[in-house]
């Protein structure tokens, strides 16, 4: 939590002025018992009516000035707290965005979302309350003690005893609660995860009639959350009763000491009243603070979770890669590349080498789970190779800055994801400043013109979350267009035409071949027909290259390729 506080420094003035005005207000409050004591001693005991009026009026003035001070304090506190949280959220979002695929896989989206939302809300509340009250309460408590000393140091020794004891109780409970609140938030993560799952998998859940089971699973997590909340609630609820009890015991002690001192003529009755008032003020303040401390404890627990995310390393710096002079002039080259996923037993790719010149097409084909997607993910450096090197434009991808590298690649992922907004906005992901003609040209090449034409709003047709108002095929074609808008040097199509019918698929390939800027293309596909015309074909089998060559040579030399080809063609031909 405390490392987060550096983001408060943009609100230094507010963070100082807020508590300062609170302190000023509290000072006024501390003067109140003195004024009352004066009323009692000078006014009533001394039978001086004008003194009563004078000090009564003073109390009124204190109230008014106190109001002004506290409104000012609230303003600064709110500004600092809200500004602080907004800033941390922005930092957090940027940080999470820099996570590599591997880091994001490990962290998990659900908990990242709770941390950005629920946790940050608690932090905001805590910071706001802290600025408003946390300084104020100890100040009032200590101030009350100091004032007590001005009245009678011997009786005031009781304050010196009371305050450390109370601190031990309060901080003890606080320390006990922080890990408990952390547990609550962790339970909340699970509830959120289940909720997300139910939303994303609604069709399957309903198709399998799993509603009841899902409800039961949710209930289990919900019960864990409720139990955790109740438990920490019970512990933190000790704070108020304990402080109440302690203070009252101190009051007894105080009046006892006071009575002895009055008997010996050292103290007056009015002074005992003042001492008692100070002790009551401490009680009132601590009761107020108890509620606050619960919020702060929660805030600290949540802040720790946020900080933990910020402390996760994000992104990778560009580093020195190996030189490969033989790859000079190539668009993409693999040199003895092996890759293993974190925690996996076997290599997902082993010893892959290939060279693709600008304007050429590489077809990648192979069985399910053969490593096709893994292979293409290495080019934009979504993952780092375990062995060997991947070269882009003749340079090791690890030696290139990530954004520079990725801006030259247009990738169409297997899962066709669109974002909430309009079609135009989605296409402009490829390039911010693309013109209307460029967008239309990309749509045309991606065989997606009809999607626009069917829609009365054209390019400005709304896209819902995940593009769910479009069919799978429409989504795929739009994601292809999105990549084309970029005019990349390298175009990667990761089995992105699977939902397209053959005619559309064929037209799409034709259009890509005749793109004016002649990008190098990596085409991952299940369909032999889609890659048969590629300049190079890589046949993957269980992560290893089962063959690398052209269609004609592979048909001769590669049994795996022949099998794939025949499974799709020969028998079709026989049927005709």
């Amino acid at each position, binding site marked *: 939590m405390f490392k987060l506080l550096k983001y408060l420094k943009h609100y230094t003035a507010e963070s100082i002025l807020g508590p300062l005005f609170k302190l000023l207000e509290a000072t006024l409050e501390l003067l109140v018992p003195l*004024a009352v004591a004066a*009323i009692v001693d000078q*006014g009533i005991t001394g039978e001086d009516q004008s003194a009563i*009026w004078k000090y*009564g009026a003073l109390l009124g003035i204190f*109230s008014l000035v106190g109001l002004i001070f*506290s409104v000012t304090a609230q303003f600064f506190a*709110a500004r600092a707290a809200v500004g602080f949280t907004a800033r941390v959220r*922005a930092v957090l979002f*940027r940080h999470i*965005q820099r996570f590599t695929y591997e880091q994001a*896989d490990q962290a998990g*989206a659900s908990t*990242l979302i709770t941390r950005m*939302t629920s946790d940050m809300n608690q932090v905001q509340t805590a910071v*706001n309350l802290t600025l408003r009250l946390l300084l104020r309460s100890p100040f009032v408590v200590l101030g009350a003690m100091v004032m007590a000393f001005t009245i009678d140091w011997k009786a005031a020794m009781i304050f010196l005893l009371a305050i450390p004891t109370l601190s031990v109780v309060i901080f003890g409970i606080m320390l006990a609660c922080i890990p408990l609140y952390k547990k609550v938030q962790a339970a*909340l993560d699970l509830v959120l995860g289940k*909720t997300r*799952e139910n*939303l*994303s*998998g*609604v*069709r399957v859940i*309903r*198709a399998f*009639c799993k*509603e009841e089971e899902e*409800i039961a699973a949710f209930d289990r997590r919900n019960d864990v959350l*409720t139990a955790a*909340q109740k438990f920490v*609630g019970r512990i933190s609820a000790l704070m108020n009763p304990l402080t*109440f009890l302690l203070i009252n015991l101190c009051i*007894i002690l105080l009046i006892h000491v006071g*009575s002895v001192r009055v*008997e010996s*003529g050292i103290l007056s*009755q009015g002074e*005992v009243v003042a001492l*008692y008032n100070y002790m009551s003020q401490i009680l009132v303040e601590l009761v107020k603070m108890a509620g606050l401390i619960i919020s702060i404890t929660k805030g600290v627990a949540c802040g720790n979770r946020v900080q933990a995310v910020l402390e996760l390393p994000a992104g990778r710096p560009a580093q020195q890669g190996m030189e490969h002079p033989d790859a000079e002039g190539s668009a993409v080259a693999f040199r003895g590349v092996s890759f293993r*996923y974190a925690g996996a037993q076997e290599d997902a790719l082993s010893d892959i080498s290939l060279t693709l010149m600008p304007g050429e097409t590489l077809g990648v084909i192979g*069985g*399910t*789970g053969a490593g096709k997607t893994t292979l293409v993910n290495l080019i934009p450096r979504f993952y780092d190779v375990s062995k060997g090197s991947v070269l882009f434009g003749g340079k090791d991808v690890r030696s290139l800055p990530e*954004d520079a590298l*990725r801006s030259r*690649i247009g*990738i169409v*992922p297997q899962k066709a*994801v669109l974002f909430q907004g309009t079609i135009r906005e989605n296409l402009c992901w490829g390039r911010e400043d693309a013109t209307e003609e460029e967008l239309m040209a990309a749509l045309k090449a991606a065989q997606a013109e009809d999607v626009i034409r069917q829609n009365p709003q054209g390019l400005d047709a709304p896209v819902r*979350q995940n593009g769910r108002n479009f*069919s*799978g*095929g429409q989504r795929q074609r739009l994601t292809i267009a999105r990549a084309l808008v970029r005019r990349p040097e390298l175009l990667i199509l990761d089995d992105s035409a699977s939902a397209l019918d*053959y005619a559309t698929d064929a037209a799409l390939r034709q259009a890509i071949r005749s793109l004016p800027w002649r990008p190098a293309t990596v085409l991952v596909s*299940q369909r032999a*027909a889609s890659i048969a015309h590629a300049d190079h074909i890589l046949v993957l089998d269980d992560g290893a290259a089962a063959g690398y060559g052209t269609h004609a040579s592979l048909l001769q030399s590669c049994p795996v390729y022949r099998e*794939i080809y025949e499974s*799709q063609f020969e028998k*079709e031909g026989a049927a005709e």
Partner: protein
Amino acid sequence: MNRNKNGVWRSVLRRLKKYTGWIVLSILLSAVTVVGSLWIPILVGRAIDCIIAAGRVDFASLKTLFLQIAIIAGATAALQWVMNAINNKVVYQVVGDVRREAIRKLQKLPLSYLDAHSSGDTISRIITDVDQFADGLLLGFTQLFSGVVTILATLILMLTIHPGITLLVVVLTPLSLLSARFIAGRTYRMFHRQSKIRGEQTAFIDEMIGNQKVVQAFGREKSNAAQFDAINERLKKASLNATFFSSLTNPCTRFINNIIYAGVALTGALTALSGGLTVGGLTCFLSYANQYTKPFNEISGVITELQNALACAAQIFALTDDAPELTETGDQALPPATGRVSLEQVSFSYRPDQKLIENLNLSVAPGRRIAIVGPTGCGKTTLINLLMRFYDVRSGSIAVDGRDIRSVTRQSLRRNFGMVLQDTWIKAGTVAENIAIGKPDASREEIIAAAKAAHAHGFIKRLPQGYDTLLSDESGSLSQGQRQLLCIARVMLRLPPMLILDEATSSIDTRTELKIQDAFAAMMKGRTSFIVAHRLSTIRNADVILVMKDGQIIEQGNHAQLLQQNGFYSQLYHSQFNPTV
């Protein structure tokens, strides 16, 4: 959809009803603890009256008074803790109930609602809003009751000390409530706005963090951050407004209370001067005046907190109470069907202004294999949405075994279908749990057999923990094709009378597909199957091929017949194998 505050209140109260016993107990306890904490100042006042001046201190009375104070303080503290524990219990149970309600509601929301609302927004309601609601409710509980009881009790006590000054206090205090109300009324809207923007932000976070890979592939981090900042900035403004204006309540009411305190001190002292009050009495009265006004202060604080809680509650109840709910139009269960399916004059579209399926007729005999082909966007997936009753037809009817599917329960209808979609969905859990989703009591042997039939056994075996490897929808450990094989294994395990395969093998390589063809063929035998596919190898063996275009069936027949017709199908077919393309 916009409910007013009273409506929200009523909804909250309805949910509290279950805990009436506990709430009553809590109120009783708060009454007792308030009496206890008010009694102590009386005793302290008496104790002070025992120590008038040097030589005039009554030590004997002091001793008994001290003992009384100690006992009452101890008892009050203990009861206070019990009361707090009860309040905690009630609040967290209630919000737990609300979440339970929300998940149940979620299962009943029509897909049209879910398709139209971003999931992030729904998540924000179920998680963040419920959370904030709990905070507000708890504060309300702990402070409202004891506040009200304190006010009543101090009022009585003050009356016993001096009715005249009490009257002054009573007349003035409503001022603080008025000011609190005035502010609260204005802050509710601000809190509502804050809650809404928060929902928007959660939706954005959900979308962007959930699809981080695409975001990074396109190097959109910077522009996303800018977009995030825009929402964040709006949230900051809304939040600042809500926070600052709501926090005005406290200083304002405290100001009024301080004025009252000054008034009491003044009039009390004047009365004491004329002998109407002892110094101990004045001390005690001042302490009461403080105790009396404090709850007003707290209640006003609670009122603003409650504004936030209510604004959040409104968001939740908009989901749990106001969102449309699927109602069963028939309560009979559909028994395991023979698989005769007929569509009569079916019309449907997602949006009234866009026609999709119009007057579609189709009759399928039991056990037939129906392939649906056609250009993308022609309505193939929609047809499946209708068969599964994810959506209901706009007009016309669909019947299974001669019974209108709207006359039977959705669950019994869906149990008759096995469905594999192109969009694979993996549940968080082990591989085995994922396969057994349709048959939770399946033995490990059955699961392995199904996986083998789907040719998924090979890759599952190679996973770090085999069938016990944990998966989630987000984890990238499985390829799209492997995910599809898992989904096929799910259906292989259950084998319902009818099958729907919507691009079920689109990401599976053809060799594997060939291998599972036999299993597919065995699975489809005797089962009515609807297959959406682009691969002609999958389609060729169908009994009937439906060629769809623009929501209409334009051609119908088997592969050979359709080729002979030389129509749209034959065009599609030849385009695949024409090497000049």
